[in-house]
Structure formats: C-alpha cells, structure tokens
C-alpha cells in the first residue's frame, strides 16, 4: 500500500491518476447530487415542526462536514510537508484552502437562511454558527498569508505552520464558544440537529448529498492541483510531451484532456 501512496508524491503520477479518476468522479458526483437534491426537495416528507424549511439541512450538514474535513486534510498535508518534505502535500493544501473556505461560507449562508423563519433574524450567535464563522476567518487567514509571501517555498512552509497552529486552536475555540453560548443564551432548543422526531428516511437524501459533496470536493481538488502541477513542472519533459500531443489533437473539453 505504501508504494501506491509514495507514488502519489510525484506530481507526474498525481496528474495522470487525476486524469484517469476525473471522468468517473464527474459521473458519480453528478448522479449523487442530482438524486440527493431531487429526493430531498421533492420526495422526503416535511418536518413536523418546520415544514419544508428543513430541506435546507440537505446542504447545510454536508457543507459543515466538508468544512471540517477540508481543514483536517489541510492539516494532514501541512504535517506531511513539514515532517517528510513532500512537495506534493503543499500543492494539495493550496488547492484545498479555497474550497474549504467556500464550503464554510455555504454552511454559514444555509445556517442563517434556515434561521430566518425559526429564530426571526438571519443571524443569531448560535454556538455552531459562531465557531464556523471563526473557522472561516482562519481559512481566510491562511489564504491571506499564502498570497502575502512571494517566495513559494517559504509561503508553503509558513502556511503549513499556521494550519497546524490553527488545528491546535480550533477545538479550544469551539469549546470556548460552546461555553460562552450556554452563558449568554441557553442552549437554543431548535438547533439544526435534533429533528429526531422525524421518520428516519428523511436522512437518506442527506446520505446522497453528503457523498456528492465529497465527490465535488475531490473534483475541485484534482483540477486545482493539476493546474499547480502544470505551473510548477512547466519546464519538465513530461509536461512538454503532454502539451505537444495536445497540439496534435483538438483540445478536449478542459479538465478531461486525455493524458499522453
């Protein structure tokens, strides 16, 4: 197994594997998302309390999962870069940051839009929303640091250090926000999770959209990483061969250009 993982460390291999996986990923993700959304919007029974407004959770919960998952993946890549000096880890971390930030934004938007009918205002200082807002600021901080440092290698290592510092601080932030929330407002009874009184099958669409989100995440990750690989390896022979063969045939729809 290690041999396969080791190979992923080489940009050329990552690029070719990416190209091979992408068509499948497109198909599966599209299918999952379409089924999940249609089922969630049209077919699952309305919530006994909130009526159809609860259909927002089919996007809210996967977005929250993606927010967490993308940060842990960035932390993993940062550790790999600092400890084992894997150049590929920085390429992936750089690709994940914007997607994670946008997922957090989606989580915040869906959370506050869900809140309008239930809480009466579009923003309340609910514990989960507030810690997600802080997580969004941390994402923005990492992206800002990467764009502020010119030299690419020190930017990579600096962002890796900041990500790991963020990783240590996030549980502390969540704990302090949780404690602070109980102090000021008491646990909000209508939190997003306790729709337990509903029949279990309302969770089936969330299953589909959840994996659809993960598929979408990896599509974005592979595309962005491939761009970064092309930029960094533009002088290497395999990129020249790859692009010369492209001249020979019409450039296929971007993103699925068949490899050499």
């Amino acid at each position, binding site marked *: 197994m290690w041999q396969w993982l080791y190979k992923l460390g080489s940009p050329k291999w990552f690029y070719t594997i990416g190209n091979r996986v992408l068509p499948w990923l497109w198909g599966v993700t599209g299918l999952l998302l379409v089924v999940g959304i249609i089922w969630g919007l*049209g077919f699952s029974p309305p919530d006994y309390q909130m009526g*159809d407004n609860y259909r927002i959770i089919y996007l809210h919960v996967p977005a929250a999962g993606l927010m967490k998952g993308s940060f842990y993946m960035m932390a993993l890549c940062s550790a790999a870069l600092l400890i084992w000096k894997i150049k590929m880890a920085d390429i992936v971390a750089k690709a994940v940051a914007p997607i994670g930030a946008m997922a957090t934004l989606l989580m915040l938007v869906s959370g506050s839009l869900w809140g309008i009918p239930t809480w009466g205002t579009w923003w309340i200082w609910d514990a989960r929303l507030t810690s997600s807002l802080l997580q969004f600021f941390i994402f923005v901080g990492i992206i800002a640091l990467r764009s502020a440092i010119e030299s690419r290698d020190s930017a990579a290592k600096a962002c890796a250090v900041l990500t790991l510092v963020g990783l240590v601080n996030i549980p502390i932030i969540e704990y302090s926000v949780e404690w602070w929330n109980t102090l000021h407002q008491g646990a909000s009874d209508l939190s997003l999770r306790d729709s337990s009184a509903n029949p279990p099958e309302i969770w089936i669409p969330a299953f589909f959209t959840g994996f659809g989100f993960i598929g979408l995440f990896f599509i974005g990750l592979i*595309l962005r990483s491939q761009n970064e690989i092309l930029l960094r390896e533009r002088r290497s022979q395999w990129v020249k061969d790859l692009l010369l063969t492209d001249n020979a045939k019409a450039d296929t729809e971007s993103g699925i250009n068949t490899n050499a």
Partner: protein
Amino acid sequence: MPEFQFNSLAELLNMGGYAQYVWPVYVFFLLFCLFTVVPPAYSRRKIVKQIKARLRREENQ
C-alpha cells in the same frame, strides 16, 4: 419509492411558504459548484496557452 410531496409545480416552488429561504440556499449551492469547477478549468486553459507559447518561443530560437 416515497411519493412526490407536492401536487403541483406551483406548490413545489412555494415550498410550503418557505420558498424565499430554501431556494436561495440551493442557488448558493449552485454557485459553490461553479466556484469549485469553473475557475480551475479557466485557469487551466490560460496555463496551457502560456506554456505552449513559451515552448513555441524556445523551439524557433
């Protein structure tokens, strides 16, 4: 297979009175999908063009 919850398209659009909260979220989700896919595809085309231009310059030097 669970049956369809809404009897007409208008009812679906109205989303039980919560239309102005549910649909914007799904629109934002569409933006999220476009954001994950479109910018990299666009910059891919720009990068490929750049590299090819440089290759051509080096070839006829």
